[in-house]
Every structure is written in C-alpha cells, then in structure tokens.
C-alpha cells in the first residue's frame, strides 16, 4: 500500500471538504518549513499523529516508509554535522591524525547534528502529513477540490490521472521482474548494489516505454470522450462546503497562525 492511495473510511477527516484538506496541507507544509524550534515541530508532530489515529489510517504503513527513509535521515544528520559548523565540537578530528594526507581533518559540530535532527523531524512530519489528505480523499474528489480552488480542470485531471496510474505501474514493474526471474535473472533479488544499479535499465526501459504507450492510448480514450470540449464542465458528484467545514478551516488557519507566533516568541 502506498501513501497516496485512497484508504476508505467514514471518519470526519474522510468526510471533510477536499478544499479544506488541500488548504490545510498547504498551510501546514509552509508552517513546517518556517518552524525552527524543536518544541513547535514536536507539537506539529503530535498533532499529525493524533490525526492519523483519528482518521484510522494504518500507522504500520507509515512505519515502513520511515524505515526506508532512515538512511536519508542518517545522511542528513551527518552531513549537517560535518559542514554546518558551530562552536561546539562533538568529534574532532573526524579522521584520526595517523591517517596520511587527510589525517586530522573534519569536525562534527553539535549545532550541525542538532540542525540535521531538526531537518529530519521536518521530513518525518511532511511524509506523515500528506497521506492525511491523499489517503482520506477519493482521487476524483481531490481533483474536484483542486478545480474548485481555481486550478484549470485539464491540469487537475492530468495530475490526478497520473497519480492514479502509479499502482498500475507498480504492477507492471512486478510483472517485468517476474518475467526476468522466469528466465533466470535474479539480480534484483540476490545481486549486490553495483549489480542492481547496472541491471536497472532492464527494468526501467520497458517500464517507461510501456508507460508512454499507455499514456498515449489513454489520451486517445480521453479525447474520444470530449476531454476539454467545454470550459463549463459539470460534475455529477459536486462538493459543498458545510458550516462544519468552514469551522475546521478556521481552526486550521488559527493553528498555523499560532505556530507562526510561537516561532517568533520561543
């Protein structure tokens, strides 16, 4: 299961107007990028995870993605530690003096490591935030939300149709790997990093060619059903902003304003 596939449910987050969810996503993402305070990021983290529970989304899936990102987090923290600089040295020198030529070089600063951790936390919140919208909104309502927010519907539909294609592509990639296995090609299972890297074109090339062919046919099918015919397109299932939706939107705006203020005060 991916983090953008719709996860059916009947919680209040599922029922919320897609416009409110999209706006909340945009506002909170901005707030996260502005925040440089551990306490503030911590509060956002807590909010996001509470909402995950409220929407009854499978937290396990999120755990799997974090495991995948662990390498990235480590990399970010080490790189920031090495290159950001700062008065407090944690390890100095990083490379022992005994090593010829480059010995005695490198300095891991506490400030850098701390900033690296902050960046990683931001990433964690961002990764957890997006599914709160994508996993709780059917893709057609998501597209409709974008349209009602003023995005031209051709763009909204092209984007959401592309998202819709991801599971198909995943299936196709699995089929290609299976076909390769059947002919005794097991690099993707047993190969080392270098072998895998060299083998990737055998997977990616057919996948991309297949996707392009599919996209072209899909374009034909969409054209054949008058895609782009009228600027006044109608929607059989429309969305309506209720008083509750407005209240939630006001709450979201208030919350993000509070975060902004907290960043200045703390």
């Amino acid at each position, binding site marked *: 299961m991916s983090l953008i596939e719709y996860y059916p449910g009947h919680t209040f987050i599922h029922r919320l107007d897609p416009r409110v969810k999209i706006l909340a996503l945009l506002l909170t993402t901005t707030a996260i990028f502005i925040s440089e305070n551990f306490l503030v990021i911590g509060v956002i983290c807590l909010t996001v995870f509470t909402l995950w529970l409220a929407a009854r989304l499978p937290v396990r899936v999120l755990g799997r993605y974090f495991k995948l990102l662990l390498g990235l987090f480590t990399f970010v923290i080490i790189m920031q530690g090495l290159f950001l600089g700062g008065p407090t040295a944690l390890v100095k020198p990083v490379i022992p003096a005994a090593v010829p030529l480059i010995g005695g070089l490198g300095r891991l600063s506490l400030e850098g490591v701390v900033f690296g951790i902050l960046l990683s936390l931001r990433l964690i919140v961002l990764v957890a935030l997006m599914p709160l919208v994508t996993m709780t909104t059917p893709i057609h309502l998501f597209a409709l939300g974008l349209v009602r927010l003023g995005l031209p519907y051709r763009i909204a539909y092209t984007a959401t149709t592309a998202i819709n294609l991801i599971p198909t592509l995943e299936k196709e990639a699995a089929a290609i790997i299976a076909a390769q296995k059947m002919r005794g090609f097991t690099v993707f299972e047993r190969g080392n990093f270098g072998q895998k890297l060299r083998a990737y074109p055998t997977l990616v090339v057919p996948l991309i060619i297949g996707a392009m062919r599919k996209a072209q046919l899909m374009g034909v099918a969409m054209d054949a059903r*008058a895609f782009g015919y009228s600027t006044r397109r109608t929607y059989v299932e429309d969305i309506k902003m209720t008083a509750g939706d407005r209240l939630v939107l006001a709450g979201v705006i208030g919350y993000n304003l509070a975060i902004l203020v907290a960043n200045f005060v703390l």
Partner: protein
Amino acid sequence: MAAELIRITGLSYRYPGSKKWALQDINLTVAPGELVALMGENGAGKTTLCQCLNGIIPHSRGGRLKGRVMVAGLDTATTLVARLALKVGMVLEDPETQLFTTLVKNEVAFGPENLGRPAGEIRRTITWALEVVGLQGYEERPPAALSGGQKQRLAIAAALAMQPQVLVLDEPTSQLDPVGSSEVLAVIRDLKERYGLTIVIATHDSETAAAFADRVCVLKEGRVLACDSPRVVFRDRELLRQAWVRPPQVAALADYIQARGVDLAGFPINLPEGRRMVTELL
C-alpha cells in the same frame, strides 16, 4: 445531405516518420443503422481506419492525410476530436487503458461532464448506459475490479453516454476470454437490433462478422479489397486467402461440401444457416 452517415472518399494516410501509406485510396460509405465489420490481418489498417473516423487521425497522431472523411456531416480533418466525440463513440482494443477513473459511475459520467451536461441528466444517463450494457448495480465499484468483459462493456457504456450516432469498436473482444467475449458481442447485437445504432467494428473473428455484420470490408496493406455482404465475402475463397482472413467454420464446411460436387441452394455462413444446410442434406 445524402442518406449515409459516414462517407470516406479517396482516403490515404501515412503515419509521421513513415514512408509507407497505412491507408491507400479508401472509399467507403456507411448508412444509418448499418453494422460494418472491418477485417484483415494485423497491420492491414483496421485500427488506422477506425481512428480516422473520430478524428484521432490526424488530430492526435499527426502524419499526412489525403482525401476526406465525413461523419454525420462533419469533416474530421477540420473538426476537433472533442466535437467529433459527440457523433462518434469509440471503444479501444485494450480494456485497461481506456478506463481512467476510480469508480464505474465516474467512468460513464466523464464524457457527459466534459460536455457540460447538468448533473441530474448525467445521473439518468449513467443509469441508462449501465443498463444497456448490463452493468446496473456496479456504479460504486472501481473499474479495476471488473473482469475483462465487464471492463469492455463499461467502455461501451462510457461511449454510449455521449449519445453518439456511430459507435466504432476496435477489436473489442481480442483480449477477452470466451465468456467475456460473448458478453460483449451480446451487447453489440442489442445495440444494433434494439437501438438501431450505426456500428463499425474491426475484428479478426469471422464468426462474429458472419453473425452480425450487414457488410464486411476486407483490408490488406491499407487497401479495401472488397466490401460486400458477408455471404459474398466469405464465399470468395481467393479473396480470403489473399487477405489472410479465415472464413467462418460453417462457410468452410459449405465450401468443402460444394467442392465435393454437392449443389447447395444457398451458401450458409453462420450457425443457424449451417444447421439448416445440414438438416436438408441429411
């Protein structure tokens, strides 16, 4: 305006970057309510001809087009595909790529929504179109969860929702199992007999052509070799051999019997006629 719904005159077409003409000097008319089957081996030009009928050629594909294709009074070369979509519904070969929404009802609604029809009317259209293809009750299912035959019937419903005058089906059953295939053919028969829709179908299946078509057009290397009633076409062994078209089994049997010197009153091409022939002979 003449009585025909489709008039193709002197149509030749070359794909971009290709030196070979995919279609050469095609002349064809289709009358309202007629069902015309396009037959021929792979690469004979069936798909290309189908795509000329709703303007995908030349608008989406580019390439060089000579001659004229008129559908319901519109010149396809100068009319937008989206506008032609009001006149010509299209069903493609692959049931997967032509369904791109998340729910069956949205798939059917997609066309009328693009036309800006009111929501109430679209809801009625969905009910009607799904009923015609026998998919009522499937509104809230995702198209991906349907069987091949159901997907292809959904594609037909989605095309019908535009209320076209002509339905073009490009090998609609070639990727389906026998059950799915017969489901789709039953729908096509219904559309012709009950709704009097004009239908152009590209197919490899001569049994289908023999059972449904008013006329069979045989293509080879982009040219129309013959365009006549199925009886005339399936009787012409030389023509079929030349175009690599397999005759219906009943016609092959009749041919075999005739070759043995037995005089047949008529030339049977489909199952009911074949049964009659055998009963008479016995």
